[in-house]
């Protein structure tokens, strides 16, 4: 009987852990861990972050004052929406999801670059980026720009 209960418990634990496969522990937007950093882009890659989902645009940022390295998660469609380059200056507001490692990880909520602001999540961390329409110039239409 005890053995049967152990098997059921094991199955439950397995089911609970399956959806988080591929995610680091505690990898979620925590508003209490929100920080704002400024720095220069050191590296740009597209990298899988969440199981079975589109890879994210990931930027490695060197903080201006401390020279610490931060890995910044932008968004999946961000790879096509934003043309960042190594050496560009970014101001990032986001949630720190890991620290104490060589590189710290930030889930970005807002990115500022070259006089423009890109809002990626609301203040609670819910994503606000959009799918394919973002690549088709809808922003201009919204602001009444059709002459």
């Amino acid at each position, binding site marked *: 009987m005890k053995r049967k209960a152990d098997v059921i418990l094991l199955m439950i634990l397995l089911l*609970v852990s399956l*959806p*988080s496969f591929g*995610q680091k522990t505690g990898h*979620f*937007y925590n508003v209490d861990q929100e920080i704002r950093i*400024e720095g220069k882009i050191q*590296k*740009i*890659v*597209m*990298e*899988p972050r*969440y*199981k*079975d*989902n*589109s*890879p994210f645009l990931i930027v490695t940022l060197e903080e201006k004052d401390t020279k610490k390295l931060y890995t910044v998660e932008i*968004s*999946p*469609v961000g*790879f*096509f929406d934003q*043309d960042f*380059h*190594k*050496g*560009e*200056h970014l*101001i990032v507001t986001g949630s720190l999801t890991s620290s104490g490692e060589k590189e710290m990880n930030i*889930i970005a909520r*807002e990115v*500022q670059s*070259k*006089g*423009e*602001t890109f*809002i990626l999540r*609301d*203040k*609670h*961390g*819910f*994503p*606000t*980026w*959009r*799918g*394919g*329409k973002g*690549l*088709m110039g*809808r922003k201009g239409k*919204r*602001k*009444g*720009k*059709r*002459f």
Partner: protein
Amino acid sequence: MLTVHSTLPADSFSLSFSQNMTNNLFQNRFAERDQLSNLSFYMDKNFSRLSLFAEGKYSYLFENSNLAYYTQDAGLDYIYPIDEKSAFYFSVAGRGIFYRSEYSDFNYLSANFFAAFKSYLSQTSILKSNYSLDYKNYRDSVFDFISHSLMVSFDKYFQTKTTLKGEIDWGYKYFFSPYVYDEVLTAETNTNSMGGKGKGNAHGSYQYVYQTKSQADGQGIQVFSLSGWIAQGLGNKIGLRFSGMRQWVLSGQNPFFFIEEFYMVENPSYDRFSWEGYQLGSQLTLLLPWNIQLKLGYTMANKEFPGIENLDLEGNPLGIIRKDKRKQIEVTTEKSFPRFSVFVSYFYVQNSSNDLYFDWNGHYFSVGIEWNIPLGAKQ
């Protein structure tokens, strides 16, 4: 719940409203004031790497309420990574536009396929390419068309905070049957000096009318353009950009004798396939205190419209091709709050044309709000 670690990266829903005012709705010398209210929603839902999206927009005109319309878009998209520096993006979308009585000829259903490729050749240079296929089926079949567009661009960032970008575009548009047949000719029909026939134009009136040519004039238009820009970062909160573009019509010409463009209304005979010439622009973007984003822009364009003949104010052909020179000033400011963003924009357009009907200027003012409502997982 077991779904506490949802793997959905984004399910978003947003509502937006904008109020637009202009003193020249129909963009011609007989300026007419109107206000246009837009109410729209946008939503998307992710299933693994596939994203479904839908957007609906209702536009209401206060003075010309018979021009009110509803637009519905829906589609899906997919990102296919090749490696950590390159990826493909694909989307398939459909659209329907439904105007009220005055514009019902322009009601259409369309399908679009879009494929894009982006690759970091190095950490400071990007190669991009995309292809777009559009098919539009109008209520009035003279406007039905299919078009192909291909773009390749390359940019390079320098440590002086300067970015250089060059772009090549090619496009082909094919009207399936841009000819008016006898049964649709009406009392307003004109015969013009070039031997074509169709509905007469209505200079001085807001009603859209058109003329088409004889079949010998062809149905396909091929365009090619070269463009580039130089962008300079000034400090960390200011961006400056100068851009230029030159477009040529390689073959074909507009099958319509008369074209118009209306504020916020898509017109199948006035688009990137209708002109050749050049365009120069400059834009300054600033991040002001309280995270307010400000954009100032100036654009000038010099366009010639192959196949579009000048008409006098009575609608008689003058035997010369229409040429326009346009200057445009833009001021846009935007502020994002935790759950919503607001924007205010102003445009001034001055259009000088050798066709007096299109010698016009106009002021366009918009104010709007967009509200994001989270639906999916926060992560």
